[in-house]
């Protein structure tokens, strides 16, 4: 799988009330972890829009939670629903997928394929007993720094409401 890029997230969100965002990293959180740890969320974003959108949010100094770790992929068409499941298996508390708006794909049509997959993935992930609030997919363009802030803030708030996932297989 693609590398996890922590710098981007922490660069975009400098001050936030998420202690131990770096400390709690490293492996699946299953047993022994305190239930009141900050939630860990994996964001899988496309290089051209949402990653740049997150950067825009950072440059604009929009305050946002630091619970999100971004994985940068070339295009949402590259994202396999299994990436999200793998993140859940590894102990993520939520997964956020974002890319270019339909019509704006850098590769013309990657996100048209992707949205079909994500829609199925969302329904199936819920079928597996993972609450809807823990998985979200959306579109954020490179210029939408504020939208990125809004999406991340709302999503993290939703996941925080449910709290960290503990002792679950997926």
């Amino acid at each position, binding site marked *: *799988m693609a590398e996890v890029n922590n710098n981007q997230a922490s660069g975009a969100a400098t001050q936030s009330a998420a202690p131990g965002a770096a400390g709690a990293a490293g492996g*699946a959180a299953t047993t022994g972890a305190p239930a009141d740890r900050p939630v860990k969320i994996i964001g899988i974003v496309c290089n051209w829009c949402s990653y740049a959108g997150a950067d825009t949010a950072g440059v604009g100094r929009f305050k946002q939670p630091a619970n999100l770790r971004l994985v940068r992929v070339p295009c949402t068409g590259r994202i*396999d*629903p*299994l990436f999200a*499941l*793998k993140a859940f*298996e590894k102990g993520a508390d939520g997964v956020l997928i974002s890319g270019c708006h*339909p019509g704006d794909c850098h590769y013309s*049509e990657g996100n*048209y*394929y992707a*949205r*079909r*997959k*994500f*829609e*199925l*993935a969302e*329904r*199936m992930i*819920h*079928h*597996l*007993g*993972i*609450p809807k609030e823990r998985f979200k*997919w*959306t*579109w954020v363009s490179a210029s939408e720094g504020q939208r990125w802030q809004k999406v991340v803030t709302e999503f993290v708030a939703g996941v925080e409401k449910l709290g960290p996932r503990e002792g*679950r*297989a*997926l």
Partner: protein
Amino acid sequence: MSRQDHIREFAAKALADGRVDYFIGWKQGHSSSEAIPAFVKEAAAVEELIWNPLCHHNLVTFLKRNMPDPTGAKIGVCVKGCDSRTLGALLQEELVDKDKLYVVGVPCDGIVDRRKLEKEFADEIVDIAFPEKGKVAATTRKGDRKEFAQDQVLLENCTRCRYPNPVYSDDTAGPLEIEPDRGLTAPDWSDIADYENLSDDDKQALLEKIYSTCVRCFACINVCPVCFCWDKCVNRSRQPELVSQKVGTKENLLFQMVHMFHVAGRCPSCGACDRACPVEIPLYLLHRKMNKEIYDMFGFEPGAKLDEKPVFQVFDLKDQFGD
């Protein structure tokens, strides 16, 4: 003339004419209580081919890899309605060569679930007979004999079958079965309703219980006609690693997710994986749900129409997903 005679006749003719190099059908297993796949290479040997409600194997599985095998071979194959949809899925993606195939369609009125019969006896079943249409008689080694109505011991899949007749075949073994009007009726998804009504926590708890017994033997994947990156399966891959070698429910579930998502849009729920599972994991819980959602999203039934493409290989600008 029975369907069995039709199959033998078609097979003998195709083998004698040289239309096929070998013919895949069903034959009796170690006893008359079981059918197994048969590979017939000579017209003289077609007498071993059988057809009865025990012939549950989806023979399209043998076409999926290195087709044709050996290179250039022409293959004859028997398909039931559900099997023909898996063949349809392979044909939609041009993974098999129509010209190298001779397909005998077998209209089917339901396959008997041997596991249901086994649960009725303490002893091993050594003979299953069909004394008359709609009746199944099973006899054990100790001589216990019980008769069942065929409707009562059908596979779950068969009780809500929408495709009793093959959607694609060169020849048909006997008259067609009565079909439901698919334009008027939607598929019946009631088998997963109980699961769907559970709370999130209960779903997770149930899945963990079910999948804790999985031994990752790959039977479900090997037997699946549409799960065809068999020798390069990401489940076997250690670099990159998606599913770890660790023994655990986590890995088992992810293993099944790989299978499930990789056949999305191709799996017509033929049930071969359910029947192949040695620990009787109800895989249909996931696959049927996937098909339900795909039907809900696109009105698409995998493999049903040869001129369609699997929904995840194409897109439509008018799709209304996402915000």
